[in-house]
């Protein structure tokens, strides 16, 4: 298909450039259900790309995978019904005042803008269970902080550009912290599956006082 562009990414990987997140999700679902899945070690969605990595003992399959990706018909992929996941949030983050100043929004308007956004899980990455959720309203979008924090508390609800996320663990981070999630953890290795949210799920932030 003309809307995919398959790029080389080393001896056992290919990177597919795609027009948008829904095309990424469709192609990821198609690859997972295809006859090629058994030859692949990783299928990694990005914001507008899909990385596929062949198993070390199946590098020979990569040419066939590339040809298949070029001619894939993701409309035939099995559809997974996205879930709606409610995330309770206390909006008392250390960057809330700064975000208000930089966006010109009042505290209540900034909180409402974040709370009422229409969010979908675009992809997971950065750290285990870190879900990049797209859909931050234009009025609230800010680039990442110029100086990242060395440690962001687990559960922090944060924004950067068009994405919002809940930090699944205490990690370094450069996003603006608006509040903290107080519900089920985003990531728990003792839970099956460990991740709370999956690709395509709708996220609804519920304000707690």
């Amino acid at each position: 298909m003309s809307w995919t562009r398959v790029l080389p990414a080393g001896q056992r990987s290919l990177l597919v450039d795609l027009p948008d997140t829904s095309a990424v999700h469709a192609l990821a679902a198609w690859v997972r259900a295809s006859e090629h899945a058994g030859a692949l070690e990783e299928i990694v969605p990005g914001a507008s790309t899909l990385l596929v990595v062949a198993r070390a003992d199946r590098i020979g399959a990569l040419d066939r995978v590339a040809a298949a990706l070029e001619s894939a018909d993701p409309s035939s992929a099995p559809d997974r019904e996205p879930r709606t996941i409610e995330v309770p949030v206390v909006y008392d983050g250390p960057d809330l005042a700064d975000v208000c100043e930089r966006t010109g929004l009042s505290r209540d308007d900034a909180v409402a803008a974040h709370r009422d956004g229409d969010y979908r899980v675009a992809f997971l990455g950065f750290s285990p269970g870190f879900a990049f959720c797209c859909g931050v309203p234009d009025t609230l979008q800010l680039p990442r902080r110029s100086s990242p924090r060395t440690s962001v508390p687990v559960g922090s609800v944060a924004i950067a550009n068009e994405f919002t996320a809940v930090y699944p663990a205490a990690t370094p981070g450069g996003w603006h912290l608006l509040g903290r999630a107080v519900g089920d953890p985003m990531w728990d290795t003792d839970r099956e599956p460990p991740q709370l949210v999956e690709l395509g799920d709708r996220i609804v932030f519920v304000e707690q006082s």
Partner: protein
Amino acid sequence: MTDVEVVGCGPYATVQDLGRPGLAHLGVACSGAADRSSLRLANRLVGNAEDAAGVEVLAGGLALRCSGALVAAVTGAPVPLRIDGRAVGVGTALHLHAGQVLRLGQPVHGLRTYVAVAGGVAVQPVLGSRSTDSMSGLGPPALATGQRLPVGSEHGEASTVEVPPLSQLDVVTLRCRLGPRHDWFAGETLETFLTATWTVGADADRVGVRLEGPTLAYDRDGQLPSEGMPHGAVQVPPSGQPIVFLPDHGTVGGYPVVAVVSEPGLDLLAQAVPGTAVRFARG
């Protein structure tokens, strides 16, 4: 069950196997031994499956006391090695009696030494692997003096061969393929990338190795949306100084990847101390 007591652990020793492949879409790095061929070799020498967990020892200093009879092997960065003070060799199966202490000195050259024990280090796996992921904290914490490591019981016959120690390289050559984002760089910049001699910087860990050398400037403006990062990705941040990703690297990244290094090269890079000369070669 036999176990080993950590009686010395040097600056940074971790349990590593071949990691957690297949979970990158959840943000879980593969992790596992930085020099995979050395861990595999150590496992073969003691009669383990190649993917059994051993100890990755950064800059030497590990000392283990075994509670029962134990077969061990030491590979990777060569170190002076003693059992209860008696000098023994790397690259061969070592037979220890109960209570004996295997002690590693500092590497003669190289950075990471691997210790396999017959039966494998049997700490509790997390998501299918016993590896410590230094970035996410998955897996067991780094080893600490006084800790006891359980040792598994399943293994085959130990090998009777002795393999030569890892050789010291004046220049580490990393075979790579250009892409996926080499079109972010002008042709002459790619030429510079492929012909320059780079130096391993001080900023080198299990996540990646920063290389110092000429500046690789972008040939375009704009930002790259976050995308999946394969092992060995050579990512070029705005500073123009490339970083080669090792096993604990983030699963996605937002800077262009000019080339991807093939896996044998990554094993060599994992042994390169700061200051080592590095060149890239296509192939």
